[in-house]
């Protein structure tokens, strides 16, 4: 154990030394990122890390953060891999909390976020609850309603309920001939399930769409002949696919083979990433997905270019990581965070209070609202796959 600690601390020293931000008059403001950088969701981790580094770089090069005692703070980002498992996620955050970091941004997977938030103290200041007291500001894990588990948990992820309600309303006014909807659901992925059963299936009837049922499959399934026949039998106008890119593509390919066509495809927010296009650009052509990010504003374009410099691409997930750093900068300045070694716990409490007090935050696409439950209501738009790229179909902000 001691050796592990030794190795770790020497590594930390090395990282800090390399970054070269800890110059004499400045103080390092340590923000840690964590998420999956191994396994099938590795791209999430790579992009989030790149976005955080890009944001930190942007802030540091524009003068850094003004700390409570007037010193200039430079943001120092390090990203840790949790392999998308609950155990490691908890362990990583405890490791971060044991160090000088003021706040952590992550995780990437909802199945890490849920247990992790459970480990945190439920009500801040509740002495009878020995849960961890450390602020977490989630960028990626998107499953609905998780932040209400703990007062130390904050999220800046899009609210699927709002996005899909609006999307269906818009679709219905734009194309009144669309009458029925059918879904394909990845049953063993909590987020995908929730997106259909708790979000889309509720939203569709409100705009007069008839729900014709759903076909089900599993995250790692490879054969969709049966499900596609169910889709064919239902012959819906709209097919909503609540699944991640791998099975989304699998189903779309099987539909092409069986010659099944629907008037409109709607996808899961998380699938509006490069993965889908990497896997099945041809079949996914035309799929409509609501998303909280596309490089449509000047800020967003600049941010995307910045992230690319750090070998990552900005999508709806990593854009949140980018925004989070800026939000945290604002909170740190407002709350007078000191970032001194002996004020770590007080600083964390200040950040928690600051985040909780926010009613509105700046984002790459515009203002986001914050809810009582520490969640965000982010601006969104609809994108569709066109010629192997994501293109904006409709942007409620500008129209």
């Amino acid at each position: 154990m001691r050796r592990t600690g030794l190795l770790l601390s020497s590594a930390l020293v090395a990282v800090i030394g390399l970054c070269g931000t800890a110059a004499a008059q400045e103080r390092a403001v340590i923000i840690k990122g964590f998420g999956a950088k191994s396994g099938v969701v590795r791209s999430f981790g790579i992009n989030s890390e790149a976005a955080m580094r890009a944001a930190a770089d942007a802030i540091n090069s524009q003068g850094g953060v003004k700390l409570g005692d007037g010193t200039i703070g430079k943001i120092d980002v390090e990203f840790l891999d949790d392999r998308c498992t609950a155990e490691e996620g908890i362990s990583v955050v405890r490791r971060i909390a044991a160090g000088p970091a003021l706040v952590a941004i992550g995780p990437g997977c909802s199945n890490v976020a849920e247990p992790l938030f459970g480990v945190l103290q439920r009500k801040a200041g509740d002495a009878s609850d020995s849960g961890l007291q450390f602020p977490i500001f989630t960028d990626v894990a998107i499953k609905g309603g998780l932040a209400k588990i703990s007062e130390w948990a904050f999220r800046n992820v899009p609210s699927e309920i709002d996005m899909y309600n609006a999307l269906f309303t818009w679709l219905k006014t734009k194309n009144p001939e669309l009458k029925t909807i059918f879904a394909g659901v990845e049953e063993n992925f909590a987020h995908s399930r929730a997106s259909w059963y708790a979000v889309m299936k509720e939203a569709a009837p409100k705009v007069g769409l008839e729900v014709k049922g759903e076909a089900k499959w599993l995250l790692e399934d490879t054969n969709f002949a049966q499900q596609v026949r169910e889709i064919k039998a239902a012959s819906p106008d709209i097919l909503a696919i609540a699944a991640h890119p791998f099975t989304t593509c699998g189903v779309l390919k099987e539909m092409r083979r069986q010659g099944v066509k629907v008037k409109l495809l709607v996808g899961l927010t998380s699938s509006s990433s490069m993965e889908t296009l990497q896997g099945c650009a041809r079949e996914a052509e035309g799929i409509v997905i609501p998303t909280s990010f596309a490089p449509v504003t000047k800020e967003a374009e600049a941010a995307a270019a910045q992230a690319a410099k750090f070998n990552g691409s900005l999508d709806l997930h990593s854009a949140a990581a980018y925004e989070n750093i800026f939000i945290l900068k604002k909170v740190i300045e407002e709350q007078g965070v000191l970032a001194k070694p002996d004020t770590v716990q007080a600083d964390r409490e200040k950040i928690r209070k600051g985040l909780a007090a926010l009613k509105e935050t700046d984002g790459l696409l515009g203002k986001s609202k914050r809810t009582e439950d520490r969640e965000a209501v982010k601006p969104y738009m609809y994108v569709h796959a066109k010629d192997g790229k994501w293109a904006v179909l409709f942007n409620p902000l500008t129209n």
Partner: protein
Amino acid sequence: MGFVDYVQAIIDGLLFGTTYSLIGIGFTLVFGVMHKINMSYAAASLAGAYCGLIGPQMLGLPPWSVFPLSIVAAGVIGYVIYLTCFRFIPLASPLATLMSTVGMLLLVDEIVVHATAGMPQNYPAIYDGDPIELGPFILRADLVGVFLICVVAMAVLLALLYRTRLGMATRAVAQQPVAAQLCGMRLQAVNGLTFVVAGLLGGVAGAMIGASVGMLSPLIAGTITVKGLIVTVIGGLGSIPGAIVAGLLVGAAENLFQAVRNVTERDIYVMLLLFAFLVLRPGGLFAAARGRD
């Protein structure tokens, strides 16, 4: 759900089951020769298929080049696995090779993840036309092609095992390793070659899985490993015909369970069926006749 649907479900399952058969044969082949299980086999087969993608994606070769490249790559990976997980571990430690190949499985998977960032990769189909219609039933044309390629691969394998000197050596080593050595066969060379042959076959399997799914993702490796092992034991350890039949059986059974019940319960029944099968018929479908001691 009517009768036609159930039959259609079975047909789909049978066609898809051929890929399970190929993986099952690879497991069984190595088991037959070394009496050891190579847990990393399915992952290595998929890794071979991934390597095939280097051709069209990075070297600008035509799309069909993925298939031969996948096969060759998988053969090479097979030999590397032999060297790293079997060659230097004493024969008397079966648990050690079990564990080393599990380590290899994790390693191979992670290499693939690092190379692709875990993103699914488009994989060309072997045939991209309309499905074949037989009365009320629909057959995926490309899967029929995959089925035929699998059958050819198996036939080549059987010919190799029963018609060539290498095959004879392999079988000799499998049955009487000491006697075979006394007859001048180099045990290590034969074992290594078995891994190459199994690897080549795995390459066919990996490529065909990629072609029939239309994509590759590290997500598949786990499923294919479990399915391959199931097929191997249902077919009877070391039995190639057994693995073929069992692959089709597993493919058909899981699709039927899915049609009759639903997808979330499907695998429970597959697993319980397997458990019951193993307990009631511990030797598998094509168990080698047990002699007296």
